[in-house]
């Protein structure tokens, strides 16, 4: 029995798709618009510009992996679909960073949670970063457009893992709600992080990229951009290297260059491009991660945390409680626990660790996204280049972050016990299995909160090419255009001046749709209305 794969359809045979790993000689291409990266920003931009009649080339460093390959094997999926085979770490090794590396980018492997940029965040950007154009009112119709395009709606049937979060919050009188997801005809399997085999997830792989290809766009995958050549205030060419042993050079010339390689990849390309001016050294600065903490409850009944939509409930109760720029706020969500993924999130040693894994079917997992970048003590990290030319994130975990981490751990434990957990352990190497809220509270307060003892993750890299009107603090202006290069734009999460405070994919879709349409400027809408 086979499921449909749009890339295997008869109609797809006319699509212009090049696997650069098969190039046997150096190549050159030309287009109106070249878009680097095919994730949330690149995919959205590709549909808009190609449907507006521009010749478009999409460049992706990952391979073209489609639903015909999504076999739900954890090892193969992590090794193939994620950056560095899911081994990407911050510079000092204290934060694990999950990002997609495949056509469609992280949208292929994310857990489908789709939130509009919180109004508090947009208001903060306005006040602190002088961003006047992107208010909640101005963005609303663009969010609505992309919600329609990608089938975004609250998921009505949370699995037991997410119900645990809803139940605990309800018992404590904490507001919790259903998460909107970008799915159509979802089978409720729970394997969004391994690539959706049914194509229900409306990732860029199955939505905007096919739309762009149908409109004549070209996709070149397995091609890594090395640098841009700028002269006379414009990008003259883009240089790239094929991802194979022969490492052929590919040169692309385009009237407009759009970087959408994500908040590590985009600053890295700019940092590798010495001819692109950066007089105030702002590129790769203020990188934010939503540092993420994990907690686990042993529930009385089976949870089966590997099955069912991974994330469908959340609470923002602790996000803004102490002011937008006060002590670090956080968002609570559930975390899916397929065995191999669970094995690295759950901390512990020896028999205690084994017992935690043996109890997996009864285990519920929560995570807390720390909203970084809003407080003077939360300046984020920076993109640094390693000696081999690859980028890394240098993100110091300071006392401000650690204090937020402790508060989040305490609240997650409290919610678990309110939901009826028999015991709780947290993502900390010295955590015990606590059998009451009182015990957990005392123990967590006594734990040393230090990097590497805590399991800290991130699936949301933001910032590093911040937007804003002032070139001394921002890399691009509010239109996404580089302050010093007239035909260079950035359309991805790297332009956010702080973290978002929510899973960022819809923020990227909406903002990119707005910026791309403004660039075209004819008042028409080029996103498909009825896919």
């Amino acid at each position: 029995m086979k499921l449909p794969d749009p890339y295997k359809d008869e109609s797809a045979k006319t699509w212009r798709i090049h696997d650069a790993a098969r190039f046997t000689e150096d190549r050159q291409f030309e287009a109106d618009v070249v878009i680097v990266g095919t994730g949330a920003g690149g995919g959205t931009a590709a549909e808009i510009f190609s449907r507006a009649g521009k010749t478009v080339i999409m460049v992706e460093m990952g391979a073209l992996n489609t639903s015909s390959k999504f076999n739900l094997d954890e090892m193969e999926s992590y090794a193939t679909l994620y950056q560095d085979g899911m081994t990407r770490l911050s510079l000092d090794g204290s934060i694990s960073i999950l990002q997609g590396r495949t056509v469609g980018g992280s949208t292929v492997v994310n857990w489908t949670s789709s939130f509009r940029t919180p109004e508090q965040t947009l208001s903060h950007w306005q006040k602190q970063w002088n961003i006047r154009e992107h208010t909640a009112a101005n963005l609303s119709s663009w969010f609505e457009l992309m919600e329609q395009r990608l089938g975004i709606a609250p998921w009505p049937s949370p699995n037991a893992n997410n119900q645990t979060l809803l139940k605990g919050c309800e018992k404590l009188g904490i507001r919790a709600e259903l998460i909107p997801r970008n799915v159509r005809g979802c089978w409720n399997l729970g394997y969004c992080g391994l690539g959706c085999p049914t194509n229900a997830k409306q990732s860029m792989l199955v939505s905007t990229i096919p739309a762009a290809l149908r409109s004549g766009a070209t996709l070149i995958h397995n091609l890594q951009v090395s640098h841009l050549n700028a002269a006379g205030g414009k990008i003259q060419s883009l240089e790239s290297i094929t991802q194979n042993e022969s490492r052929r050079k590919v040169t692309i010339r385009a009237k407009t260059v759009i970087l959408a390689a994500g908040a590590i990849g985009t600053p890295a390309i700019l940092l590798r491009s010495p001819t692109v001016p950066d007089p105030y050294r702002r590129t790769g600065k203020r990188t934010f991660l939503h540092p993420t903490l994990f907690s686990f409850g042993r529930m009385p009944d089976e949870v089966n945390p590997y099955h069912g939509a991974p994330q469908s409930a959340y609470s923002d109760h602790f996000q803004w409680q102490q002011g937008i720029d006060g002590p670090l706020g956080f968002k609570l969500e559930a975390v899916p626990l397929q065995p191999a993924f669970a094995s690295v999130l759950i901390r512990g040693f020896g028999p205690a660790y084994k017992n935690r894994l043996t109890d997996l079917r009864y285990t519920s997992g929560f995570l807390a996204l720390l909203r970084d970048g809003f407080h003077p003590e939360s300046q984020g990290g920076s993109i640094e280049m390693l000696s081999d030319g690859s980028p890394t994130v240098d993100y110091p975990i300071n006392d401000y972050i650690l204090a937020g981490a402790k508060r989040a751990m305490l609240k997650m434990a409290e919610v678990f016990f309110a939901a009826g957990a028999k015991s709780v352990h947290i993502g900390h190497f010295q955590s015990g299995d606590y059998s009451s809220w009182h015990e957990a509270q005392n123990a967590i307060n006594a734990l040393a909160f230090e990097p590497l003892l805590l399991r800290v993750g991130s699936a949301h890299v933001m910032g590093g090419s911040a937007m804003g009107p002032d070139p001394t603090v921002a890399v691009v202006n509010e239109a996404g255009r580089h302050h010093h290069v007239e035909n260079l734009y950035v359309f991805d999460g790297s332009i956010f001046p702080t973290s978002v405070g929510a899973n960022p994919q819809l923020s990227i879709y909406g903002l990119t749709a707005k910026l791309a349409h403004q660039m075209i400027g004819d008042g028409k809408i080029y996103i498909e209305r009825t896919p």
Partner: protein
Amino acid sequence: MRKSRRDFLRSSGIQGFTFNLWGRVIARSTLPLVTVQALWTSRSEAASFDIPLKHLKAEYLPLLIAITKVSLGLENRDINASDSIILIRNCDHLIDQAPESIRKDLLLLFNILQFPITRWMMGIRSDWHQADPAAVNALIRNWNFGGVRILRYGYQSLLSLLQLSWYAGATPSASTGYPGVPEAIRPYVETIGDYAP
């Protein structure tokens, strides 16, 4: 400013003498290392199997199993040949996908753990396939909880590799009670191949 991960680790003011001193000695003394390792290997019961490994060596298997057993609480469990092969193959696969800087660090760590003199200095006084679990336990606890950041980083990098590689296997994942993918998708998944181009 360009930094290498190793520059950072070496300049971080940490008392990681094992990494800093022996790591440099081993990394830079290729000929003595090969000679000594060859002699040692010839006296050990190195595993032998026919799966291609791009980075790891078959003789690393006893050390992988010894650390996996203690770290993951599997001391009372026999790890059969099939699970062993999956463990080292998955480790090798993940190392292959890692960026060059992390790959070099991990392979250096394996060399340090495998090299008889450094292994002995770290308290493992016999070959890895005969290693005393108590000594392995002490070594790991010292690395993870001893307060030396570089050792904690080294152990945890290795631990994540072993955890992911072990629990991605069918038998270990079933030991968690995991029933596999939902019934509805099984007939379809069986027709899906792998990620080979």
